[in-house]
């Protein structure tokens, strides 16, 4: 096709479940491209000589390369091209913030809309899986080096996938009973089906990665004991798993959840399918979700699917400052989530049985910029009001889980108890111990954790081979 023709193609929309239907089910919201639509979208890529999109990708996927293969109809080859640098394409195609990474750099975006890189990545990963043609590269030259990976979230899975392909003997230790970290306990089914995570984890197992679930490092074994067992290096990817609360009155009332608990019950324990699954969850009718990030959106949309009449998203700043992806906010609003912006809770009100019945809030206005560069919310005097709610989900961020740090002497941490690690290598203050992902940076995104994992894998390889 002529370049002129290709430039005329419009960005292909993603078919989605109707908001009125999907707000009451847990099926995935976007339905995915068909082969025809994917080819049409792939033709929009003009194959830049110096592709800026690749620079925007934390794991440097050969974006023009895989898109060219899609345009030729070579979908399986395209999937394999991505897998050369990204072990989790079906996950990344769904949850990466492409609009601030690869797609924001796309030259097509300057005059029209950028190429839908994320949707194409998702398409080929799903195509390969559905075709059952997932190929397992043969690994030659086993090094005989043993590497322990602590945590099976995005950074741990990336480190493990990279190192096993370099010929190392890799074992992942996971605290929970299922592998995937935040991909299984945090991100809901309607955004990332758990069968897809399981398939990507299964791919790593087929590559030779061993996964020991229900093993809490720091409890059943310490990092030093792992070295004593014969591991040559240890990677710590334990994530940001400690829920934050606001420490306001009434936060321990029944019906007040941390987002971590609410989402873990629903996602990991499948409480949305109670009583088929044993773990219960409160199905509130009037639910307040506190926060403005992706986790707040996930919580609000989960509450709606659990049968709420009203879900109020309470955020202390304005829409411009919301950390959630625009797409997530858009999806939430389509599903009827009511945004209460410039609103800050000051206490929860309970009944004599200890159940939350209301939330008292203050109206805010934006003042001078704070440390984060965003305008600081300032309370408006006398603006207190009470809203009736029966469930609250606090989604204001997460801190670092101290289990590993507190049992690893000589491991330096910063004032928030995150592990201090070199940005380029993941090297910590302890020899042979590397770290990456949220446990270093604080709560961030899946792909940034994967990028850190990629860098750490290279450094770990260099370290164990020089020993």
């Amino acid at each position: 096709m002529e370049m002129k023709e290709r430039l005329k193609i419009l960005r292909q929309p993603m078919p989605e479940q109707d908001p009125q239907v999907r707000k009451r089910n847990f099926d995935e919201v976007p339905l995915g491209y068909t082969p025809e639509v994917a080819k049409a979208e792939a033709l929009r890529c003009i194959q830049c000589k110096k592709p800026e999109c690749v620079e925007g990708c934390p794991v440097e996927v050969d974006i023009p390369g895989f898109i060219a293969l899609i345009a030729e109809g070579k979908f399986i080859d395209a999937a394999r091209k991505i897998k050369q640098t990204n072990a989790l394409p079906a996950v990344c195609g769904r949850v990466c913030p492409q609009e601030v990474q690869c797609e924001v750099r796309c030259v097509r975006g300057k005059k029209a809309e950028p190429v839908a890189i994320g949707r194409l990545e998702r398409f080929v990963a799903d195509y390969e899986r559905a075709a059952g043609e997932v190929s397992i590269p043969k690994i030659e030259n086993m090094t005989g080096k043993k590497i322990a990976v602590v945590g099976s979230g995005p950074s741990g899975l990336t480190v493990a996938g990279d190192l096993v392909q370099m010929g190392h003997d890799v074992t992942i230790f996971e605290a929970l009973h299922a592998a995937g970290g935040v991909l299984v306990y945090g991100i809901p089914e309607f955004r990332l089906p758990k069968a897809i995570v399981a398939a990507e984890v299964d791919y790593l197992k087929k590559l030779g990665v061993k996964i020991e679930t229900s093993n809490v490092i720091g409890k059943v074994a310490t990092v030093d004991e792992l070295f004593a067992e014969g591991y040559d290096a240890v990677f710590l990817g334990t994530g940001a798993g400690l829920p934050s609360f606001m420490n306001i009155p009434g936060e321990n009332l029944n019906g007040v959840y941390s987002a971590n608990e609410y989402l873990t019950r629903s996602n990991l324990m499948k409480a949305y399918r109670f009583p088929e699954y044993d773990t219960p969850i409160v199905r509130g009718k009037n639910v307040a979700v506190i926060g403005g990030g992706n986790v707040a959106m996930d919580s609000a949309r989960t509450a709606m699917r659990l049968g709420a009449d009203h879900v109020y998203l309470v955020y202390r700043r304005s829409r411009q400052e919301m950390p959630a992806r625009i797409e997530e906010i858009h999806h939430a609003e389509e599903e009827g989530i009511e945004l209460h912006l410039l609103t800050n809770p000051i206490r929860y009100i309970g009944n004599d049985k200890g159940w939350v019945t209301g939330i008292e809030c203050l109206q805010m206005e934006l003042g001078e910029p704070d440390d984060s560069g965003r305008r600081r919310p300032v309370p408006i005097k006398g603006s207190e009001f009470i809203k009736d709610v029966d469930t609250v989900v606090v989604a204001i961020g997460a801190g670092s889980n101290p289990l590993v740090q507190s049992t690893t002497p000589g491991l330096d941490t910063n004032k928030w108890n995150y592990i201090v690690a070199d940005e380029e290598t993941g090297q910590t203050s302890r020899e042979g111990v590397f770290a990456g992902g949220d446990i270093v940076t604080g709560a961030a995104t899946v792909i940034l954790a994967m990028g850190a994992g990629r860098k750490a894998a290279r450094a770990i390889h260099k370290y164990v081979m020089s020993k």
Partner: protein
Amino acid sequence: MSAKILEKQQLSENVFKLVLDAPKIAKKRKAGQFVVLRIHEEGERIPLTIADADPAKGTLTIIFQVVGKSTAHLSGLEAGDSLLDLVGPMGQPTHVEKIGTVVCVGGGVGVAPVYPITQAMKNAGNHVISIIGARCKDLIIMEEEMKAVSDEIIVTTDDGSYGYHGFVSQALEEKYLMTGDKKIDMVVAIGPVPMMRALCDVTKKYNVPTVVSLNSIMVDATGMCGACRVTVGGKTRFVCVDGPEFDGHQVDFKELIDRQRIYLDQEKQCYDHYCTCRQQGKGA
């Protein structure tokens, strides 16, 4: 990791003991710590205190009371069956040192978790007094085991069918605190929340430091979710990682009781459904 059941024993009407093959946990576990187990793919994560362990044999003992669907299901497993997942040891170990005279109190199935602490207190060289109680004689468990690790022991029953007629808190007050014969340096108490609250009310009066072990609702038990949060001395603490033991005089028991009732309706629904299915022979 999964874990095989090596031995099963019924201790009273609703209380069962399982010995599990769990060498890694058996080696690491200290008095006061717990495990989390899952029976089947659709199952809950169930936290249970470790009652005993044999590091040489690689075994772990858990003792539990049937209170709902999950524990009913667990009681239906036999030696040779396996638990789907077993993780531990979780929580902070009991702080054990020689301080003089320690009273270890266990109520109902709470005797099981207080047993390893009693043993550790005795091994540390303390003079150990045990008070174990239940509603009636048939529900008293581990009397012999407790006797073996105690210098003195009192057994109480609410209905007077055996031993001291009354509650453990009454026995403690009447036999020791009121008489003042012996200086009690510390009390460790585990049992139903109302029992621990009543006991703390008594020991507070006499200014005797009291440690309680809390069995809050948990999900992950690694500090990730906060389901188990409890107010201690005005501050929110997580039972799973900060506990399970706390200064009993600082615990907000009212809040704890409320929080334990969050899922009462769902638990009943789940249990009724399970019992109906079992009666109809459909299995679990």
